[in-house]
């Protein structure tokens, strides 16, 4: 069974998938830490290949502050398997999306494949967020028992320091902002385009039928 040639939908699918390449250049997530003593907030940009400071020495300075409350240092590339696997997964999904787009362009696959790619990507994305949140929990709660400062909540339980997955939170003297960054917006737009490709492809197929 040959499918319809879907020129427009195929191109949209290809563009949508390619937008994911932005993750190799732009950060996925950004966490900023401001405080009275930090009018220029410290910040970290989370890339799929690793974590970098917003400014040159931010990571070192965040680690320096975190050692007071016994947090682990921010992971280096070699300390988390995610920084090895995530780029491969994204690379694979880009390639897959482009192939599906090209095949769709020449009418070798149906428009449903576009949606299929989107569903797969959504599942992977959700898993990624879940994993990210696990890391944040671990980072914010697995504290050195010899920590210099051991604060407690009013109910007497030890204070933990998990940054918000998304949004704003006041933590001790710090204002913490955690928001998607450029890379995340590029995935969002890219994935949205693959859905557009699905509907456009559907329309193109119907016209012919």
């Amino acid at each position, binding site marked *: 069974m040959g499918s319809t040639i879907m020129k427009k939908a195929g191109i949209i699918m290809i563009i949508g998938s390619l937008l994911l390449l932005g993750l190799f250049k732009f950060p996925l997530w950004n966490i900023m830490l401001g405080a009275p003593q930090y009018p*220029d907030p410290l910040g970290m940009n989370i890339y799929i290949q690793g974590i970098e400071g917003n400014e*040159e*020495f931010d990571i*070192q*300075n965040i680690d*320096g502050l975190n050692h*007071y409350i016994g947090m682990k240092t921010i992971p280096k590339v070699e300390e988390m398997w995610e920084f090895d696997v995530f780029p491969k997964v994204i690379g694979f999904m880009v390639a897959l999306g482009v192939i599906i787009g090209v095949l769709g362009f020449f009418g070798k696959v149906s428009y449903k494949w576009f949606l299929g790619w989107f569903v797969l990507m959504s599942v992977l994305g959700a898993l990624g967020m879940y994993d990210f949140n696990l890391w944040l929990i671990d980072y914010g709660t697995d504290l050195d028992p010899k920590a*210099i*400062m051991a604060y407690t909540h009013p109910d007497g339980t030890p204070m933990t320091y998990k940054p918000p997955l998304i949004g704003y939170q006041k933590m001790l003297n710090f204002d913490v902002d955690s928001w998607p960054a450029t890379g995340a917006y590029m995935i969002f737009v890219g994935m949205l385009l693959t859905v557009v490709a699905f509907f456009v492809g559907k329309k193109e197929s119907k016209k012919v039928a």
Partner: protein
Amino acid sequence: MKKSINILFFLAIAAGLVGCNNGNDRKSGKGQGGLATNAAERVYVAPGEHDEYYAFMSGGFSGQLSVYGLPSGRMLKVLPVFSQNPENGYGYTEETKPMLNTSFGFVPWDDSHHPDISQTDGVLDGRWIFINGNNTPRIARIDLKNFATEEIIEIPNSAGNHSSSFITENTEYVVAGTRFSVPIPQEDMPINEYKGNFKGSLTFISVDQETGRMGIKFQLIMPGFNYDLSHPGRDKSHGWFFFTTYNTEEAHSLLEVNASQNDKDFIAAINWKKIEEYVNNGGGKMVPANYAHNVMDEHTHTATSTMLKEVLTVNPLDVPGAVYFLPTPKSPHGCDVDPTGEYIIGNGKLSADLTVHSFTKMLDAIENKKFDGEAYGIPILNFEDILAGVVKQPGLGPLHTEFDDKGNAYTTFFISSEVVKWKVGTWEVLDRQPVFYSVGHGMIPGGNSRKPFGKYFVALNKITKDRYLPTGPELTQSAQLFDITGDKMELLLDFPTIGEPHYAAAIPADMIKNNSRKIYKLAENKHPYAAFTNSDTKVVREGKNVHIYMNMIRSHFNPDNIEGVKVGDKVFFHITNLEQDFDVPHGFAVIGANNAEMLIVPGKTETLVWEPKQVGVWPFYCTDFCSALHQEMQGYVRVSPADSDIELSWSLDED
């Protein structure tokens, strides 16, 4: 006795003239400004806001350079230059001690006078600021990225380095003139053989445009007058330099009388381009000398002092057409050039008038040989032929003139204690305001360039009296800020200053504030004793010298327990601040140190020497409240008897 009576007579006349000038419009200084106007609003810089200008005020007899914000008059920093500064260890640490080396040995103090900011095309560029040490002749260069003294060069054959440090309009040269003439070369001779035998040197120091490095290009050996102040020509007169002189009488004693006899002294006009060309073609005479050149390396954070052994001198008679004298009435003090470069103002401090020379007329007089004799072979131009105009009876005791960007000049009057605004070209007096009290220099941001920023005028006053709450017999100095945007000058603010702020230089904050360094990068630290990691920390004995390679980060020293030091040892604490965060310096102080503390900014390594004299266990600690655990930032050195055989050991967090 007769001479004393003369002085009294003069002062009596002076007082009378003050009365005449100011009789009707004299205002009470008390409560002036502020109340009747919105002056308070105009100097108010809200919490967290920044000032519009950086003002660099000479620290005078503190030897330093102070940094103020305008219009608030808030002091931002005192930059150590010519004097030791126990507050941060400048001049006490091993790295900075060479900065204060001279041919007289280590000189830990000076009298700083005239800051001048570097220029390009006659406009402030904010790369460096230069300032002179008056007592032991030196010129310092302060980098305006690091806000730190990077270089000091001693000036040989000079004494009372006062007509300094003024720069040419592309910072080609920083110029230093001697106030006191001396035997050149120095020799053992009777003082009363001064006349004809003592000489005055005018030194042209070239500045490398990339590094800022200074080197004496040549010294012009002039007749034995007192070279008081100077300024470069600019724009059309670029290539010339002008120096006021007094004591053309060549008196050597009781100068207050004997150097005030001639009706006219001179402004020396120097065509430095002509002399530069002469020197570049092999002219001049290299003579033996001995002077220190001290340079701070930005990467090792360590200064080196080199003694230089010769200097190129130029006899003005060997370069015809390079040097002329402009007769100027009554012991002129300030020598100021307007932004167009046309007018050269001689502020005759014992005169009631202000003399203005014309550069164009000067060139014409030279061309047409309109001479009025000569002094030691140097042609004296005819006074009438070079005169541009006279500001008639503006006040008493004119000292200095600054310029705005609208063609107005502002002259300070010491005796009549006022600032007088007058029009350049018409010589008409436009306004006068009293100052409290007895103003020396005045300063307009960029006032020594082609492009002044004519918003504020700062009067740098010599006498304070009752302006602030009394603090015993010794008072702070006082500055006053005027708004000069209107027709009349308006007093906005008094603020205290350190030392005696002779002169000042100011620049729009936007031109430098974004370049201001926040930290030194550890990756660029090339200090031979730096300890970047915990494995770099160690203690090494070399005979009686014990070198401690230590580092510090919030909130501990590594190592913080040291044993094996003995009485009679010389202990070098080489400490690296591992912080790479803005405004996290750590201090270091150890009990019984005979020098000072040191304050180490992030990324730097500095060294303090400690010579323990008593057996015991002695603490050291961080002096700068660096963090919540600052009080915990401490350590101990065990000092054993000189004959002890305890081995050196060091540790952090070990039992």
